[in-house]
């Protein structure tokens, strides 16, 4: 299998060539183009019941597409919906947490599950569920804007809209900045509060920031 991240940092996406029998999993809807003999299956992250629960509660199904090559040299292009950077990550038994829009693709050895972000996350507008990747294999995630990798030691606070991924060796909670009043009116929305040691990946722009700015011009 050859997977190239191309067009970083502005339009990062994946150019993939699969050998016979090889499989790649991707975010639902990420396929941009492919050779016509690739076989498609779908998988619900974490199984049927969790997927149903997510659909009912959050309207997010978090399905993934599974593409399998029937012959060597099958080509596949996978793109995130948002312009930005794509990061390749090698998962080695230590799990990785991703915000729901950040997952792009992974190899078969990676298992994807979901974690409920808590009731506060329901109001964050960034999705209520986080994706937990476990196992071994390559994983690719995407951002809006550039990605900053940050090594946390101690406490660290990030706006939920700017979080891309983190290592769950860190403790994390979704909270507001201060009380409910300031959560609603400060414009800071919700934050992920990390403590301990581990890595966090941030994105330099947020979709809600763009939408908020555009909203001022909507009539």
């Amino acid at each position, binding site marked *: 299998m050859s997977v190239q991240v191309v067009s970083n940092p*502005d339009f990062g996406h994946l150019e993939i060539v699969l050998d016979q029998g090889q499989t790649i999993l991707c975010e639902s*809807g990420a*396929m*941009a183009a492919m*050779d016509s003999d690739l076989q498609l299956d779908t998988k619900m992250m974490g199984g049927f019941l969790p997927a149903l629960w997510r659909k009912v509660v959050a309207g997010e199904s978090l399905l993934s597409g599974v593409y399998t090559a029937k012959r060597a040299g099958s080509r596949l292009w996978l*793109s995130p919906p948002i*312009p930005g950077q794509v990061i390749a990550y090698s998962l080695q038994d230590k799990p990785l947490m991703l915000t729901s829009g950040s997952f792009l693709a992974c190899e078969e050895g990676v298992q994807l599950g979901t974690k409920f972000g808590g009731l506060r996350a329901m109001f964050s507008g960034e999705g209520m569920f986080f994706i937990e990747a476990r196992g071994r294999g390559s994983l690719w995630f995407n951002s809006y804007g550039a990605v900053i990798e940050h090594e946390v030691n101690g406490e660290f606070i990030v706006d939920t809209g700017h979080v891309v991924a983190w290592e769950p060796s860190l403790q994390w909670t979704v909270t507001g900045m201060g009380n409910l009043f300031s959560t609603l009116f400060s414009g800071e929305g919700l934050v992920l509060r990390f403590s301990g040691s581990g890595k966090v990946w941030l994105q330099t722009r947020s979709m809600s920031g763009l*939408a908020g700015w555009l909203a001022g011009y*909507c009539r």
Partner: protein
Amino acid sequence: MKASVIGTDSFQSLHVELSPGERFYSEAGKMVRCSSGVDIEVTLQKKGGGFMGALKRLLSSDSFFYSRYTAQGTGTSEVVIAPTMMGNVRVLELKGDETWITSGGSYLASGPEITSEAKWQGLGAGLLSGESLMFVHNRGIGFLAVEAFGTIHEVDVNGEFVVDTGHLVAFESSLSFTVGKVGGSWIKSFFSGEGFVMNFKGTGKLLMQSHNGSSFGGLLGPLLPKRRS
């Protein structure tokens, strides 16, 4: 006349140099700058099109009007045309023996001898795919410039190839296509998030874009306030 691409990868534009008397067309409203000797007219008429042609163009997600730029004066004139989305511009040099079909809104500009005709792409294809009902067929001798969201990839199709409807920019008419499902069944196709794709067949070149405007818009839209009716 010389048409070239300028700017950085993420924000490319089209630069056209005109000698006195030369002219070209672009989709209306796309001009950034031009020399003072350039005469700009808005027109429905382009070679091989009239009012009906313009109506059909609307159904192809392209503009109803064209802008026509004619160089007056004595020296070389310049015109710069910018696309709507951030991303690549590609200039194709047509030699007269091929037709390039541009999909939903990818037509940017063309030389004076290029005819651009919106054609019905087939009922099933248009309604089902979420793409426009018409594709624009461009032929003749001269340049054709297309715009894209993200990076443009050129693919040499030989046999069969699948492109998501939102990632198609343009293709040669030697390729035929059907709109359909990807994978084994309609159910799989829908659950995978890949509602409809275009199955290409034959031999020819195809241009695709790395990003999909509908996907980006689909994420952004729900975050915006409701439109007042």
